[in-house]
């Protein structure tokens, strides 16, 4: 029986190499070499994988963070638009996709008692606030009607029937050299307060502005 004082990591007394105890660990080591090399190898492999994967993923999601340019397009002289009814205008929303990039907006002159949202001309997007189908203006009823799921909006663009979750979106308007120009799109709350542009189907106002956060690839509301 060996003496209690003999229980060290030192030699067994026969002149051979010292036996590590616990196995793999020599005196003063907190990590065996095998484990250190395993961790180092996995770290290098992880870095090599990240170097390949992260740029590829960033490449795919980059458009989400792309700040767009503000574009304005003339849609006709001021004499073309009245307060009484909407005039449809067609302009290019997205460049480079031909006909698919064009959109229709309904434009009228703002009446003097209209304070919210303040624009010289009211330009309503034809994109239904339910799921994005194109609405059309029915002159006789003074309403906007969506063909897909039956959404109905009144003359101001507020929802009066069907599944839409908020009023029709607006485009900013301005007058330059006697021409009415339409600019960036923005959404409105049910009280017609401007908010940053949201996709169709997303509520606006109050807590919804957090649940459906504004996206960095849209322009701020006026």
């Amino acid at each position: 029986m060996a003496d209690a004082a003999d229980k060290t990591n030192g030699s067994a007394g026969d002149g051979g190499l010292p036996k590590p105890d616990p196995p793999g660990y020599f005196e003063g080591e907190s990590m065996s070499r095998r484990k250190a090399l395993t961790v180092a190898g996995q770290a290098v492999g992880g870095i090599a994988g990240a170097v390949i994967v992260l740029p590829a993923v960033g490449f795919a999601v980059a458009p989400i963070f792309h700040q767009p340019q503000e574009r304005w397009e003339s849609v006709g002289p001021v004499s073309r638009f009245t307060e009484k009814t909407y005039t449809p205008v067609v302009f290019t929303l997205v460049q480079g996709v031909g006909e698919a990039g064009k959109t229709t907006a309904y434009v009228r002159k703002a009446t003097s008692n209209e304070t919210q949202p303040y624009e010289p001309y009211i330009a309503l997007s034809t994109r239904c606030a339910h799921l994005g189908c194109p609405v059309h203006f029915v002159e006789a009823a003074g309403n906007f009607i969506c063909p897909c799921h039956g959404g109905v909006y009144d003359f101001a663009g507020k929802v009066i029937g069907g599944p839409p979750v908020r009023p029709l979106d607006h485009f900013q308007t301005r007058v330059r050299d006697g021409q009415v120009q339409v600019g960036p799109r923005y959404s409105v709350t049910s009280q017609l307060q401007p908010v940053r542009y949201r996709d169709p189907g997303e509520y606006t106002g109050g807590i919804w502005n957090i649940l459906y956060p504004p996206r960095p690839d849209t322009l701020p509301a006026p």
Partner: protein
Amino acid sequence: MLIPGPLKKPPKPGDGDGAGPAERLKETPADLVGWIDERTGGASFLTGMLYRKVPKGTTWFYTLGSATLFAFVVQAVTGVFLAMYYTPSATQAYGSITHLTNDVFLGEFVRGMHVWGASLMIILIWLHMARTFVFGAYKYPRELNWVIGVVLLILTMTMAFTGYLLPFDQRSFWASVVGININGTGPVLGPYLSDFLRAGPDFGATTLSRFYAIHMMLIPGAIAALIGAHLYLVAKLGTTAPPWLKVESEPELREQEV
């Protein structure tokens, strides 16, 4: 010997008169399949795969998975040939589809196979899933295969969603607009998912090519890999007997039960 015999063991080396060179020469396969098999061991794999035991009561219901696999193969083959004529550009996509359908020899037929085959694949997946559910074939030890199957279902639905846009006519355009907006109604992350699918806040120049890349490369690869895992687990775990078949014990054991 294209398909090996059932569970026939090859003679052990040295079982003959002697393990001399002449004996070894006799064992060396002289045909191409044998040559490949000697180097890959594929024959034993195929033997295990093709001659594995199936439970009593295996019926036509059990072919729905194979039918779904066949539908996927049809989609893959016709899809490759459609891609030879298709142009994933917003200004040319519709024209290339019109040309493919009306002018190319058998174009309408191949496109029809792809279009109708897509619906068929979805139907077959649901039937296959219903069979698995009703027969209780998702239970231990096959839960993981059920999970893989559900992922395959989701991937196939994504294929249907991304493929629908590619003809780029009015119907597919507006259906995709609506579909992307449905994705956007998910709280917090939904708007960003929509932006990812469209590559921007509006349906833009690279939306179509994005859908095309997802439809053409990303998901088919994932589906093929998961089908491999799905089949591996089927071969490893075997299939289940239908629930109306009771387990019969061996006759001699039955006597002991009394």
